[in-house]
């Protein structure tokens, strides 16, 4: 039966002599690994390199030129694009706005999501239904959500106008007012994303060992004490994760702003990406836009690294 009968007839003891270890091929038994590597890695590697890494490198290069994107970049301007960015009032406003989104997320969205998550996790009737409804805005496209809220905020035809009308007040135009527009946008951001954060917390709550909470019951903790002294500390990693997503999301926010305000009025609702789009892409200022991209890249990478290093190193 044995196949070695045919393939290796008889053994000579010369072959059976022990050989020195270093001459042996490493992992000689699994020598077929190269075909797999050569077939499986290149598609992802090439696509990723050509369309993610190289463009990022090129952005760094283009950022030192004044270039409209045609031909080759020739007009070297040194650090001027970067100086222009930091002197641009709209850019500082964008930075402030991105910061505001993070702050609103920490102050409003995270507590709201946690609060709803604890309620939904407490085995009430209809928990599934509420989960479904609260998560719904998250699956809608940012563009659609922005457009829907553009209607909601509309002073003449929208819901906010209608409410003002009920109270006999002047119709407000929040999105058209530079003092209120950003707050209106924060509302939409929370409306759209709280459900996602709530799901993070529900997952976090589910991973808490029930017997720990029962032990707290035995120890005589009240409901609120249990939450503050047991549940919340055990949810620490989820809170940090939730804030991390808020930061990352804020840095990418673009799709929702465009239908709502497009960055206006008078740049009061720019985010980093809308700034890049409005000042770099639409004007085909490749050098300037690339410089904005590089700044955004540096901010993203610095935040991701330092946040993970400082807050999430134990998670």
């Amino acid at each position: 039966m044995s196949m070695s009968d045919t393939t290796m007839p008889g053994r000579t003891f010369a072959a059976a002599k022990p050989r020195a270890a270093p001459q042996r091929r490493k992992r000689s038994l699994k020598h077929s690994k190269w075909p797999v590597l050569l077939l499986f890695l290149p598609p992802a590697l090439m696509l990723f390199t050509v369309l993610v890494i190289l463009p990022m490198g090129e952005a760094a290069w283009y950022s030192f030129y004044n270039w409209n994107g045609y031909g080759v970049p020739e007009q070297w301007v040194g650090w001027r694009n970067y100086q222009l960015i930091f002197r641009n009032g709209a850019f500082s406003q964008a930075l402030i706005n991105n910061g505001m989104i993070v702050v609103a997320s920490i102050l409003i969205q995270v507590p709201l999501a946690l609060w709803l998550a604890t309620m939904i996790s407490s085995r009430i009737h209809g928990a599934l239904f509420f989960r479904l409804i609260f998560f719904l805005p998250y699956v809608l496209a940012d563009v659609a959500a922005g457009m829907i809220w553009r209607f909601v905020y509309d002073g003449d035809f929208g819901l906010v106008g209608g409410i003002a009308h009920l109270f006999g007040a002047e119709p407000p135009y929040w999105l058209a007012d530079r003092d209120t527009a950003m707050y209106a946008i924060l509302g939409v951001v929370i409306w759209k994303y709280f459900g996602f954060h709530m799901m993070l917390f529900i997952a976090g709550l589910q991973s808490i060992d029930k017997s720990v909470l029962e032990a707290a019951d035995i120890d005589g903790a009240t409901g609120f004490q249990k939450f503050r002294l047991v549940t919340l500390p055990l949810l620490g990693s989820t809170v940090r994760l939730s804030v991390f997503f808020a930061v990352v999301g804020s840095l990418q926010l673009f799709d929702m702003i465009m239908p709502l305000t497009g960055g206006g009025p008078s740049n009061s609702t720019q985010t980093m990406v809308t700034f890049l789009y409005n000042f770099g892409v639409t004007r085909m200022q490749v050098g300037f836009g690339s410089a904005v991209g590089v700044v955004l890249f540096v901010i993203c990478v610095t935040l991701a690294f330092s946040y993970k290093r400082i807050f999430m190193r134990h998670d």
Partner: protein
Amino acid sequence: MASVELHEVRKAFGALEVIHGVSLAIEDGEFVALVGPSGCGKSTLLRMIAGLEDISGGDIIIDNAVVNDLTPRERNIAMVFQSYALYPHMTVAENMGFNLRLSGTPKAAIAERVNEAARMLDLVPLMERKPAQLSGGQRQRVAMGRAIVRNPAVFLFDEPLSNLDAKLRVQMRSEIKTLHQKVKTTSIYVTHDQIEAMTLADRIVVLNQGRVEQQGTPMELYKNPANLFVAAFIGSPAMNLLDGTIDAEGGEAAVRLSDGTAIRIAQDRKVTRGQSIKIGLRPEHLGPGKVGTSLAGQTLLVEPTGAQTHVIFDLAGQPVTAIVDGEYPQRYGSLFQASIAADQVHVFDRETGIAL
């Protein structure tokens, strides 16, 4: 079917050598158990025979051919894993036939061989189930079925019973033995459980820290352990080991314990007077009313197990276990008297641990 030979097999992970030149010769159709404590290298050795681990030195010879650089498939071996490693997405029949399918065997031939194995293992009603729908014992049988179907040169078992509960383990143990008596395929069985090894194997190889301590039939190991390690490892409850010195008692060789008690030993032991030794007394050889040296001590603990009772008593300041009949009236604190025959006293050198 085939013989298996290991010739000075070594395994090193970097600078750390875990198998130090193991040589073994396993005959065609033999059932060999590799036994030893966890970390002794028995599983690594089995995986090297299987072709799942590279060998760092030496040769593995299956059916008179050096297989060092062959894949498991080319070695024509089958393996039963501790966690069964059944493919969760395949039915029992598909699991058993997977190997044949990979080698391009015609469907009809696969079905025939799978059914034959299923009949042998009572798996016929389960053929369309997935592994998740099977009990532990059934999964175990499927894993064996998968091994039988391919008609391999060698069966390798890697602690196949350790995931089962005690009762099932005993049952599956006899099924494995029955299976081997039916198919007579050369089998290498790794376990840390010496009872499993004793009951199943034609020959046992005791491994410790990557070296062979002793090999032989179960009874050879039980009767003549070559050293302290094997003596302590084989047998349950474990052999009692006591320090002593060689002395003469009434003109015959004896061992004197620390409290002055003398125990006579067989006259053909190669010992010299004053030599520091350890003696080994098997609990089942120590008992009241037996011939030989009388020993006595205060009872420290009485453990009834039903048919037998284990009595732990004090001998020269050390607890010693003896086995007595279940009906024997022995109470905690009372004096326990036992005797042991001279030829049942094992003697080991205290320094080297080697049997004298």
